[in-house]
């Protein structure tokens, strides 16, 4: 046992990531500078977008957003209030929420249940079925668009929010199942058996053991799925109509109508960016390391 513990420590130091190794060698300085540069490259345009969304459109011709830093008087909430008065935009914002929330929750729930079944239940054809799921991973969305459009009109649900949700769930599931099945199968078998001995049914094992232990993977999945659906334009463009279109589609159509319309696009884009950011902040606390620690041995 002591031998095993010491090898863990040894491999632990050998297998450290390249980032940690660079950090160790340069005393963290170079790495820190690199990270700051990357962060600036990403954040400056975002910051610019924020400022732009707060500037009076009349000033746009007089210079870039950075002028607002020296002339804070240019700043105003008028763009936002104008935007929130545009019913096309507010309506599409709620459409986005109505599409994204169920499409995320359903993918996580179904993916987790299926992942558990593929990882831990024995049923005939399990491995063959899992191969099919992996096969579905490589099917590109574009191939399915036309047949699904036909299918939806045959079913009479074209243009509805439901149709977009179903499409996102269907295309989110293969990856969700794949990810969660692999994560769940890393949970030690002894834990499942201990729970079984303790009197747990499969359902209890799923809710009381697998879901809590799978939280890091489930949180990553939820974030990815949420971002994907929230930012989706292609699927929404094809399956929604004017009453069900999400924010991405609504904003895209604004450009076409007005030519330059930064006063609408900037606050709209910022509005659409805020929600995923909040979701990310909320879920990131589940990325805890070493959830399994102390369980076996």
């Amino acid at each position: 046992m002591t031998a095993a513990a010491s090898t863990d420590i040894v491999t632990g130091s050998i297998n450290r990531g390249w980032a940690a190794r660079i950090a160790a060698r340069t005393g963290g300085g170079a790495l820190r500078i690199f990270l700051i540069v990357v962060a600036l490259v990403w954040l400056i345009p975002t910051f610019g977008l924020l400022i732009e969304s707060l500037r009076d459109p009349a000033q746009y011709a007089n210079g870039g957003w950075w002028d607002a830093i020296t002339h804070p008087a240019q700043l105003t909430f008028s763009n936002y209030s104008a935007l929130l008065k545009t019913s096309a935009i507010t309506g599409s914002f709620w459409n986005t929420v109505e599409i994204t929330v169920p499409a995320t929750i359903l993918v996580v729930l179904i993916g987790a249940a299926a992942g558990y079944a593929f990882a831990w239940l024995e049923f005939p054809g399990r491995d063959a079925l899992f191969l099919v799921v992996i096969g579905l991973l490589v099917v590109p969305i574009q191939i399915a668009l036309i047949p699904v459009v036909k299918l939806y009109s045959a079913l009479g649900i074209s243009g509805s929010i439901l149709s977009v949700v179903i499409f996102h769930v269907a295309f989110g599931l293969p990856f969700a199942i794949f990810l969660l099945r692999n994560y769940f199968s890393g949970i030690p078998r002894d834990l499942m058996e201990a729970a079984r001995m303790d009197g747990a049914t499969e359902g209890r094992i799923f809710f009381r053991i697998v879901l809590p232990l799978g939280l890091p993977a489930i949180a990553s999945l939820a974030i990815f799925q949420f971002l994907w659906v929230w930012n989706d334009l292609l699927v929404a463009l094809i399956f929604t109509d004017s009453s069900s279109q999400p924010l991405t589609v609504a904003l895209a159509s604004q450009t076409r109508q007005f030519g330059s319309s930064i006063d609408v696009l900037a606050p709209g884009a910022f509005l659409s960016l805020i929600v995923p950011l909040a979701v990310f902040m909320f879920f990131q606390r589940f990325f805890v390391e070493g959830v399994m620690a102390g369980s076996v041995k």
Partner: protein
Amino acid sequence: MARIALSHVGKVYEDGTRAVADLNIEVEDGEFLVFVGPSGCGKTAALRMVAGLETITEGDVRIGDKLVNNVPPRDRDVAMVFQSYALYPHLTVRDNIGFGLQLRKMPKAEVRRRVEDAARTLGLSEYLDRKPRNLSGGQRQRVAMGRAIVRQPQAFLMDEPLSNLDAKLRVQMRAEIGKLQRDLGVTTVYVTHDQVEAMTLGHRVAVIRKGVLQQIAPPQELYDRPTNLFVAGFIGSPAMNFLSATVLRDDNDQYTLEMGAETLVLPPSVPVARPALAGYVDKPIVVGIRPEDIEDASIAGRQPGRTLPARAELVEPLGSDLMVHLSMDLPQASGHEDIAELAEETGEGGVAIADERAVVVARFSPRSQVKVGDPVQITVATEQIHLFDATTGSAVWDA
């Protein structure tokens, strides 16, 4: 509490591996039964069939009077302690111990009371709100025990529960498990490959080899009357010495073992206890002598018919004893497959010596003055000798 009965139980895995064959064991109510045997002999497989974690391919398992072959683990009312402990990492000690009770919809106050009682018994009261990762190995082991005892099950099943602990803690926990089982009186099946655990804990010990039960008996009986070469060699450390001999009988019914140029005279009690020995006259036999039955003749006294010449090849002073590896000009009983397997299993082939001399391990008194390379006379406690059929390996007892 209940008895557990296995009748004609067998396990064949899907790939055709046979792990257990025709196992017939009755564990009495309140008994502490230990399964012991070399690695891969099927101990875990047998235990898991009782637990319900493994399907029973042949035979019947009964817990109490109920046939449980098709009963899922949760309805068998037995608790298991895993070698890995298998604690729920996301739950506190309190919830780990209480998990089974919560699942059974026991009232909260009752769960709390039982968990706290169990924690007190196991010395875990201070740690109830910790997560497993913040416990030491010994404390984790106790939590695993606690999870089993709070449920007050029909039986405890334990699969090498101490093998992840260091030597000192293992001894301590071994004593605690023994005491706990005595206090609670719960029927227990305990799997180990450590014969000290088997001997100290078990009311009875079942020795298993390649899925087949060899002998089931109280520890002392297992030691004194092993049923075959395998059990004789497996139980006891250092292992029993095996020598080849021919049985001779003279006109006065005096039995002698002829080993090469040397002979051992058997006291009358040996053939009296073994009526079957008469059938071996002038035939080969395997002689088993435990290390503690061999003493330096300068201490035990030189006795005709019991003293043999040897040479000390290795001397290990243990303080209380002197472990001496001797080479003797005798034929070693190395031909039998059981002996070959045992030597592999225990890693105790003795010291390899170039010529064909027998290697014998003896436990001398620390008063012995023997030095490496010295010729030494040894005296054998011939009344303690073990005799086995040279072909079947079975102990020679009744006709």
